[in-house]
Structure formats: C-alpha cells, structure tokens
C-alpha cells in the first residue's frame, strides 16, 4: 500500500500529541518565568505534525512493512556481509544503554570490562597487537588508520610520502579515506586472475608510497595469495600495509591479517560480527595495529590498573579521537554477545561455512554460461562476482535489470556494478547463516531470470512489478529543477515558490 507522508496524516487540523510531557507543578511554581533574551525566542513553533500515539505507530509500522531485511529474506549484498543478527544481541544493550560516557569509571566497570575483553579478542582475531574501539564504523576506522599512517610517517620525517596505493578492486571508502587525510591516491591494477598485479606493484612502489590499502580476500572474493610478497614489497619502501576488514568474514578464524603482514587493520563489526545494519547504521568499528603503530591508535582505550578498568590508555602518538566519545559502545555489546555465542569453534566455522556457501552457490550456477567468472578455477571466499556482460550485449539486459528481477522473485538483490573492473557485475555474498535450501532457491531464481532474459527480455526490463513501486526516475530525483530533499521543499514546489537548486 501507499502511506501518506507523516505531515499529511492529520488533515483535520486537530491538536494532537503522541506523548504527554510530565510537568512538575511545584517546580513551575518556584521558577515562574523564563529569562531567555527576547531576540532569541522562536516566534512560530516548528511545523511538526500533530498526531496521536496510534497514528504514529501505525504510520511507521506500515512503512516498515514496505521494507526488506535479513529477517525477511536473504540479502546477498556483496561486501556487506548481511548475516543473521541473533536476537539475544538486543539483550546485551542493557550493559550500556543508560550510562553516560562521562560517568565515574567506577560506575561502569561492567562496560569497561567488556570493552577491554573485546580489545583483546579483536587483537587475537586479527593477529594484531592492540585494538582501539573508538571508531563508530568501518570507514571511520579506515580514516583513523590512514591518519595513523600519516602521523607515523611525519614522526619519522617522511613527509615526502604523499601517495596512497589502493587496489583497483578496493571499496570506495579506501580512496575516499586516503583523500580525506590528504593523500594522493594511486590505483594498483589487478591481473587477469583478479589479484594484485605484482609486476605493476613492484614498479609503482617507491619512496613516495605511504602505504597500500588492501582487502584480503579482495572484493572478487579471491584470496591475495601473494600477500607475503606484497608485504615485503610495501615494507621495503618503508610503507604501511593496511587491511580493510570489510571482507574478513571469509577467512575468519582461518588466517589473520597480522600473520599476513598487515600493519593496521580495521574491522566492521556490523559485517563480520553481526551488529544489525539498521538500514544503513549505526554500525561499529575497531582499528588495530602492530608494533610501533599501536602508539598511533585513537584514544581512549581501556586498560586494567590495579584490578580496575580505566579509560586512561592514551597511545603516546595517538592520532586523536575519531568520535565524540568511545565509539559505538552500544553496538560493541551486540558483538560481545555474538562472540560469546560463537565461541572459538564458532568463530572458525564462520570463515569455513561462509566460504563453503559461496563456493556451493557458484557450483549450483556453474552451468549458466551467461554468469561469467574471472579466474573461474579459483575458490572464492566470502563472495563471488559474476559478470552478465553477455546478457547485456546479446539481450540488452543489464546487471541492474537482473537485480530488479530478483526483487520480483522475493529476494533482495546482490551488489551491482562493483567492483568497477568487472563489467555488469553481480556481487554476491551469501554468508554462513543462509541455509542450503535458501541458497538452492536463490540459485534457481537466478537461473530462471537468465532464461527469462534470453526468452523475453522486454518483460524483464519492466521489473520489478511485485514491489510497492515500479522503477524510479533517477534523473527527476537529481535534477536541480525537481530535486526535493525535504517536505518543506516539496510544499514550496507545489506552490511554485522555490528556485532551481543552484
């Protein structure tokens, strides 16, 4: 169904309120008047809607019903690791929920102990020396990591190091983070096998190289098997090898970035460690380092002093603080519960079973020649990227069309057009939490769509048709004469009272 905008639910003009404010009459009788400077007073209250509790509840319940989450069906979004979020995790927020970040440390020993344990567990999991959980998301961790690299080089008088290498299969956050920290970005090409081209790497690494940002397994789901050699090359130039943890799931408990030669690692707890994605956040992150680089981690970290946990650990060359307080502690609690439930055995099985799922799905689809693979004989880890270039060339059916057709089959779509080195890419990450039955059904659906694409491409171009709305006009959405980012702009548009956005 369609649901009106919340501003247009109350069209009777009735004065309503969904929550009563508790007023203390005694206090009001003691403080009789407000002394706010006249020139500051708001004349007209904000134009917020006026609704009863039921109207608000019903509106948002109905909106929720027009949405799709992991609890509803598989979300095979590559590089997003949309695994199941066990319900027990929500209980864990009781540890943190009502505590103020500046409370006396003695009041929050339970929280600090949890952070301390997680710092240690994530160090063990990544094979790094220490972790800071001060970063509120993966890309924030990444930014912290790049700042660490920068400060480290500055402290070693290597200001000439102005270039960050990034694999051409890398997530977009890598170059963006590098740029935010003031680095020039240089892409390292992949070879025909989808791995870092070692010859190119050797050629471009030089004195100016500050570091190399890499995911392993990479976004094609392939393990960079030359990682130890890569590490040597990077380190021989006094550069830093940076691990983007977004793809850790496929090797979790099997191989650790620290052992691979990485100096800095960030983790996305909302990917690998089952923090719910929440429609795009909040997530949580960790940033870990080895050797001298631990001195550059964001502060504060938790340490144990005389049997008490303290927020007093400030790495001596710390880059500073990324978030206002200590990172997304409420979500750390969710990962804490998740790790307790997995145990070491489960942690290892996550890596194994997610990799099993990917390769099983590939096997189920191997007979469909329109789903092309680079390096088809290599086993994937957490994810796989198919190219539907043939469908595009022969039938005019794009990766986007396939994605929309999947929506009509009751599934969420894979990540598409990523990584950019693969034409018409479908990037699929099944995760270890989807049953074989679901993988089979997904494979069947994809198979059927490819057949439909060949038989009746026109029909496919019109998908989705089972969703609450058909394909959306992106040009209209973004054109300066029609762009409408808020209700107030919509109202002005309707009245013809707004200018081009210029």
């Amino acid at each position: 169904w369609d649901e009106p905008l919340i501003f247009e639910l109350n069209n009777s003009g009735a004065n309503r309120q969904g929550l009563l404010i508790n007023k203390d009459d005694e206090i009001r009788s003691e403080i009789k008047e407000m002394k706010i400077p006249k020139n500051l007073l708001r004349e007209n209250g904000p134009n917020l809607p006026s609704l009863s509790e039921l109207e608000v509840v019903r509106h948002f319940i109905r909106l929720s019903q027009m949405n799709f989450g992991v609890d509803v069906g598989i979300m095979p979004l590559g590089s997003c690791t949309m695994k199941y979020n066990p319900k027990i995790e929500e209980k864990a927020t009781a540890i943190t929920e009502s505590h103020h970040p500046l409370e006396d440390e003695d009041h929050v020993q339970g929280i600090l102990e949890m952070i301390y344990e997680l710092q240690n567990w994530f160090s063990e999991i990544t094979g790094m020396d220490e972790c800071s959980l001060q970063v509120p998301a993966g890309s924030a961790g990444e930014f912290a990591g790049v700042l660490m690299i920068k400060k480290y080089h500055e402290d070693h008088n290597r200001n000439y190091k102005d270039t960050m290498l990034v694999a051409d299969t890398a997530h977009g956050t890598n170059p963006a983070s590098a740029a935010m920290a003031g680095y020039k970005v240089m892409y390292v090409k992949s070879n025909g096998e989808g791995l870092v081209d070692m010859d190119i790497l050797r050629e471009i690494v030089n004195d100016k190289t500050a570091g190399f940002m890499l995911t392993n397994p990479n976004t094609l789901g392939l393990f960079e098997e030359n990682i130890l050699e890569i590490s040597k090359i990077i380190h021989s130039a006094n550069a830093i090898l940076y691990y983007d943890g977004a793809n850790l799931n496929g090797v979790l408990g099997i191989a650790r970035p620290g052992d691979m030669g990485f100096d800095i690692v960030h983790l996305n707890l909302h990917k690998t460690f089952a923090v719910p994605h929440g429609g795009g956040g909040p997530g949580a992150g960790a940033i870990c380092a080895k050797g001298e680089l631990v001195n550059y981690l964001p502060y504060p970290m938790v340490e144990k002093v005389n049997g008490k946990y303290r927020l007093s650990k400030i790495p001596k060359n710390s880059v500073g603080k990324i978030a206002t307080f200590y990172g997304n502690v409420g979500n750390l609690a969710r990962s804490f519960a998740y790790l307790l439930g997995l145990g070491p055995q489960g942690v290892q099985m996550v890596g194994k079973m997610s990799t099993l799922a990917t390769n099983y799905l590939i096997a189920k689809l191997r007979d469909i020649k329109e789903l092309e693979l680079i390096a088809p004989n290599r086993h994937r880890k957490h994810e796989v990227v198919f190219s539907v270039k043939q469908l595009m060339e022969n039938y005019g059916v794009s990766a986007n069309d396939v994605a929309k057709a999947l929506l009509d089959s009751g599934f969420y779509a894979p990540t598409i057009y990523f990584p950019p080195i693969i034409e018409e890419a479908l990037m699929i990450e099944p995760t270890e939490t989807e049953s074989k039955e679901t993988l089979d059904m997904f494979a069947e659906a994809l198979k059927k769509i490819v057949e439909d694409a060949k038989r009746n491409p026109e029909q496919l171009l019109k998908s989705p048709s089972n969703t609450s709305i058909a394909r959306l006009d992106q040009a209209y959405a973004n054109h300066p004469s029609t762009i409408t980012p808020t209700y107030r702009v919509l109202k002005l548009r309707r009245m013809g009272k707004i200018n081009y956005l210029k």
Partner: protein
Amino acid sequence: MYKHPWLPNLDLIDEMLKEIGVNSLDELFNDIPAEIKINRLLNVAKGKPLSEYEIEKEINEKVKKNVELQAPPFIGAGICPHYIPNVVKFIIGRSEFYTSYTPYQPEISQGLLQALFEYQSLMAELLDMDVVNASMYDWGSALAEAVLMANRINGKKTVLVPENANPFHKEVVRTWIGGKGIKIEEVKYDKNSGELDLEDLEKKSNIDDISAIYIQQPNFFGIFESNIEHVIDVAKHKRALSIVGVNPLSLGLIKPPGSYEADIVVGDGQELGLPLNFGGPLMGVFAVRWDMSLVRQMPGRIVGITKDTNGKMGFTLILQTREQFIKREKATSNITTNEALLAIANAVYLSLLGKEGMRELAEEIYFRSHYAAKKLTEIDNVSMPFRSDFFEEFAIRFPIEYDKISNKLKERKLQGGLKLSDYTSLFCVTEVHDKKSIDLLVSTIQEMINGVETS
C-alpha cells in the same frame, strides 16, 4: 562442532563439498599460504559456544558490575539523559527496519526511504533549514565534516572556533583535519556572561584565510549566545562559511539557525529520543541552506522524492555522485554506514511530540534546570560563574573542591556534573530529573559543604 543455531549447514558440509567437487573444507583454502594459516582455535570468548541462557548470564554479570544510580546522571556535556518513549524503541525494533541495509534497491525499500525522508523533513522544520542529510556519526564528526566541507568549498585554511564550544567536539575536529593542514583559531568568551567575546571575534576574524566560523547555541556551558546573529553576519562579511552547532531540543524555545541564515548546521539527535549508550551510537545532524554550492559538497546520504515509471511518487537516494562508492577519492566524505536507524528514531520521537510537545518539553527542561540551579545557589557560597541565561546545562562554583563533592555524590550512588575546574562543575538537568532527585542532589551537596566547612 556439529550443530549451532547460527550455522545451518554444519550437517551438510560433505554434501555441499561434493556439489563443489572438493574433498574437504581445507581444500577451499588452498590458496592461503600454509605459513599464515592458523591451525588452532583462537583465544576468544569463553572457550566454547555458549547457549543463549549462558550468554544472558554473562550479560547480566556485566550489568551487575555497573552501578545502578539512584537518579539519572546529572551530567551532560552535549549528551543528556532523556525519557525515551516506548513507541520509539518499538518502531526501531521492527525487523524490517533494523535488519535492513542502505536502500540500494529503492523499489523494495520504500518504507526505509520514506522514513529517512521524513527524518530529514522533520529535522528541517526544527532547524528551519531546507536540506538535511540522513545522518552522520555524531555532533563531533558532523562538525569535523563541516569544517572539511568549508575547506573544500573555499580552499581557505583557518576555522574560528569558540573557546566555549564543546571541547569533546573540538578534539574530534582536530583529529579529522589532521591530514589537510587546516588550522583552528579559538575565540575567547566573556568570563562574566559566559557568552562569546565579540571583541575577540572581531580581532580573530581579521586573520586572512578564514574558511569558516563556528558557533554553538546554547554553548558548552548551556548558555544562550544572544548575539549569534551578529556572528553569522561577521562570517558573511568575511566571506567565510557560518557553521552553527545546536542542541535540537532547545529549538522548541529559541530561534532556529535557518531563521538567521546559517550556512551549515550540525548537532546531535541523541536528545531526541535516544539512550545515552555510553556515548555511542549517537546521531549526527547535518543540514545546509538551499544553495547548490553547499549541497554539492555535503557529506552523507540524502533521500529525495521522485516518481516511478507510472508517475507514482516514490523515494530514492539522491546526489549519490557525491559519495565514496561512486566518486572514490573525489567523494565529499568516506562515510557509508551512518546512523540511519537512529534517524528513524528521531523521526518517530519528533512525530510523537509534535510542535506543541516540543515546546512543552523544552520549557519543562528549562524550568527544571533553573530550579536545580536556584536550589544549588541557595547553599551558602555556592554561585553561578556566568550571568547569562541557560538551558539544560549550567555551571556552578563551589566553596570547596569539586572532587570532594563528587566523591560524596558517588557514595550516595549519584552522578554529579562534569568538573570544569577545581571549584566548578557543569550540571545537566532534564525532564527525567524529578524534584525529589534534584532535592537529593542539592541536600547531599549541602551536607558535604557543611561538613567540610565546619570541620
């Protein structure tokens, strides 16, 4: 390990391997050099998978190691305890929202997109701004992004920041600008009023190369900046961008930044229906004026209205060409995972309160914080260091060291204010502090002061 509730295929490994055509799980990892494979269990968690019952026990043990306070904490610094309506928790606990992802497929994500659009729109009304993004991490990082954005727009390198702006936010800004060579110049405040020192602003604004001027309303001391419009004028005059940081709750009472033409507005949505969460997740607010030069450089995701092939109204992410997954190193920010679910929580909260509720709540907080300040200053030799009017937070000067008071409060399972100096502290009082708990705070402090003074 032959069964686990979160791993459905443990019993099907052989069957699935057969389909793949390999003999063992290890074979799938043949491309990993042997020397970096870990052939042991990691030393994490409790050594074995725990049952849900056991996880809950571990959680409860952590909860018990925290102290349950007698009254909500009297501490703020930009993050204050508030009552969270059950509806808010109920809505963001809906599976379809909280287990969903960034709405890359808008056709199947209209509910989330509409909810985020409504967040943007409700926040726009509160701020009186035309363009709001769908969230940043928190106030500190939103401010940092605003500073970086100003630098991208005008290429200038100095940003004026008030001394009486939140120091925790400033720490974040300092970190974030680390790679860009941007300099912070602090503007003094008037030690009597607690407001920004306009003379010093005048002086500092004569520096060349001013990219942006920041001002916080109410400021870190909870004090209303009565000359905020003048500050915006100075920025305009110097062709610098104006950045205003606001406590959105205060806007139930005072003028919104849009009314005096701020360029960029930042703040935190935590005060609109979110728990303290020990400081995270919080909810960064980010808004700009109706000006393409600003909008184009804005960080974060934005939802907009469009239509489908049948002409039906729908919602989609807009201006994505600013974003990292398309623009990479030329993106306006690296942010991807943000605080979307909390933006929805804000939207639900604002919808519940409505126009009148917002004013009533802000008033109640005003009255309660003033009541607490009044009662505290009725104690002999206790005073307020600043003269100007305040909202929610306020500084108090004591005749004895604040550490002593703080320890006494701790004994009584109360959390006092944030220590500003040896003898002053910053308190926070909201609608969750009832008269009884305020009176308890006051009487405990009085007792301590009397004890020290008579001893």
